[in-house]
């Protein structure tokens, strides 16, 4: 039986990793991810989870351990944030290129410098090209649901790719929310035993990760590109299967009040919930504002985004990271999505909530006003940082 309980999102994620019967957890402490693996280490120590907990000496080692354990056929989980994710960088490409289905929780946090432990999306945006499936949760329920789903998708032999479940550091990781915690039976029914596509096996020896000379490197990259792009089908299918099993439907791109909207604002992660409240307030005043909530970041859901925006003429994009010297990452993808389309919205770029800067409802009001002004024929403003002290 599903139980409704109050749990910190980090603990909820750790609990479902237990329900998924992970064989190995390897991690290094980093704020604000730490509660996840601390709780897992307790579950292992208390005999609640029959798994090996490997407390390594750095994130680089953590992801390397994960590489080894999945290669041997063990269901493997890790979690990290910020500098930890950055330190894993070189191994992240290798895990996905070798089709090793690690599941990782990323408690999103800004990158140094200056040193900041607070929330934004600069860690994950710097890892855009790692070749993983990357998805965002808006609340604790989604974080735990997408973790269960993450194992199912990652281990699907058509996919066999690592999955990163992103949820905002502190804002979600350290917040206690009511969640529906599934029971072990339904999780086990949803998640078949891990049957790896390839594994290191002394009876049938293979070599993983050897040199790719110029004769085959390009083909290897094409194969990686294809499998990640084509994982879209299994992603939608397994999200539907999740909905059938647990009653909660997730989509690559979701909308809120978008049907009759004159302007749309695109969000990712926890700010989507604040944005919904902000939209409700403006709807009461008669402003036809809607939201697009981008859940799937890789593979990028181009067609879903085009459908979600439809004929709405103005689209605001909220980025929670910057790309110095270039367009912000989400806005860049959104513009690329629409460039070749006949029907395309005017795109207004906002950067919000860097390094833990709060984004209150009043900031949303300001962004909505800007979008409505563009809708009335005003000029598209230059990319703006919201909430900047000047």
């Amino acid at each position, binding site marked *: 039986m599903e139980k409704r309980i109050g749990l910190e999102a980090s603990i909820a994620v750790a609990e479902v990793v237990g329900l998924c019967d992970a064989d190995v957890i390897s991690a290094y402490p980093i704020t604000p991810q*730490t509660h996840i693996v601390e709780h897992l280490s307790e579950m292992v120590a208390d005999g609640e989870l029959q798994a090996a907990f490997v407390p390594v*000496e750095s994130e680089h080692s953590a992801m390397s351990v994960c590489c080894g354990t999945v290669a041997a056929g063990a269901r493997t989980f890790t979690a990290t944030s910020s*500098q930890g994710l950055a330190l894993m960088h070189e191994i992240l490409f290798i895990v996905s290129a070798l089709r090793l289905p690690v599941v990782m929780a990323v408690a999103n946090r800004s990158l140094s410098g200056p040193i900041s432990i607070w929330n934004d999306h600069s860690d994950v945006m710097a890892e855009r090209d790692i070749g993983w499936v990357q998805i965002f949760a808006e609340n604790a329920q989604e974080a735990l649901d997408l973790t269960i789903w993450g194992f199912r998708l990652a281990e699907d032999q058509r996919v066999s790719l690592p999955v990163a479940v992103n949820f905002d550091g502190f804002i979600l990781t350290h917040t206690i929310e009511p969640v529906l915690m599934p029971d072990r039976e339904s999780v086990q029914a949803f998640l078949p035993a891990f049957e790896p596509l390839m594994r290191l096996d002394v009876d049938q020896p293979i070599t993983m990760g050897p040199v790719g000379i110029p004769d085959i490197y390009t083909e290897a990259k094409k194969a990686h590109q294809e499998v990640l792009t084509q994982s879209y089908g299994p992603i939608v299918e397994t999200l539907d299967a999740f909905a059938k099993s647990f009653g909660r439907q997730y989509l690559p791109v979701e909308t809120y009040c978008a049907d009759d909207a004159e302007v749309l604002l695109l969000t990712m992660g926890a700010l989507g919930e604040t944005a919904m409240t902000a939209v409700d307030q403006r709807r009461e005043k008669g402003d036809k504002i809607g939201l697009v909530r981008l859940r799937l970041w890789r593979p990028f859901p181009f067609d879903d985004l085009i459908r979600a925006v439809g004929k709405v003429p103005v689209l605001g994009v909220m980025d929670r990271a910057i790309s110095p010297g270039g367009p912000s990452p989400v806005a860049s993808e959104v513009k690329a999505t629409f460039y070749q389309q006949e029907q395309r919205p005017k795109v207004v770029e906002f950067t919000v909530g860097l390094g833990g800067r709060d984004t209150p409802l009043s900031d949303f009001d300001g962004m909505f006003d800007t979008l409505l002004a563009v809708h009335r024929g005003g000029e598209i403003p230059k990319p703006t940082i919201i909430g900047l002290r000047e």
Partner: protein
Amino acid sequence: MSKATNPVESYLRMDRMPSIWCPGCGIGIVVNCFARALQQMGVDHDELAVVSGIGCTGRIAGYVDIDSFHTTHGRPIPFATGLKVARPDLKVIVMSGEGDLVSIGGNHLIHAARRNSDVKVICVNNFTYAMTGGQAGPTAPRHSIATTAPYGSFDKPFNLPFLADSTGAVYVARWTTYHVRQLTRSMAEAMSKPGFCFIEVISPCPTIFSRRNRLGDGLDAMRYYKNSSKVVNGANTRMVGLDLNGPIIVGKFIDRDRPTLLEAMDEEIGSKLGKRYVPYATTGVQR
């Protein structure tokens, strides 16, 4: 009447006090000893640079009124090596914790010691990753409780003086935060000695480590250090490993001479190139 000032204040950013360190924490004592060592040596602020990493001890870089750099996790030693190579005239001091220097930065520690990089490492060992809430670190004593070891740590901890000695450090000492005079003297000695010097400071963490392991408060830690420490200068570092709540061998263990990284480079290349080679160590970037 003028306001009374502590003589160490000139080395500290008093506008940033009070520090973030918890009551009973030993890191403030280490900073105090460091400032007193500088004062006794009569070192000018401009002859120094302090480098630290991430963690409670890593915050030292922000509290000393000296040129300082707060690096990412584990990287103060290579940063300090770079600083020293570019400015051989400076005394470069790394002050960081064991969770920074010996785990995520462990590779840098052993290679800087091997190369005899001319930096002085003051490693505050509180046996846990305190700033992230108390996970088991690389020196966590066997059977000590940590958030990632709720029934006791089971992997073997590093014996830091042995590690530094065996990888090539020219000066290795260990003191506790009870031994303020000896620690101050050791810091002054290390700062006056060319080559890779390593001082381990055993330091209490009442909020995280001591509480979880029922070791009492900061004062209890001082009593423990006073009663359980034994000074054995020149001790065989192989024999100075620590147990939870066991005896602590302190003292100056190693003091030897060998060419520093830059001296070795000058000697080797100079012997091959003769007068064509302009020695680097003595001139640095000011050539």
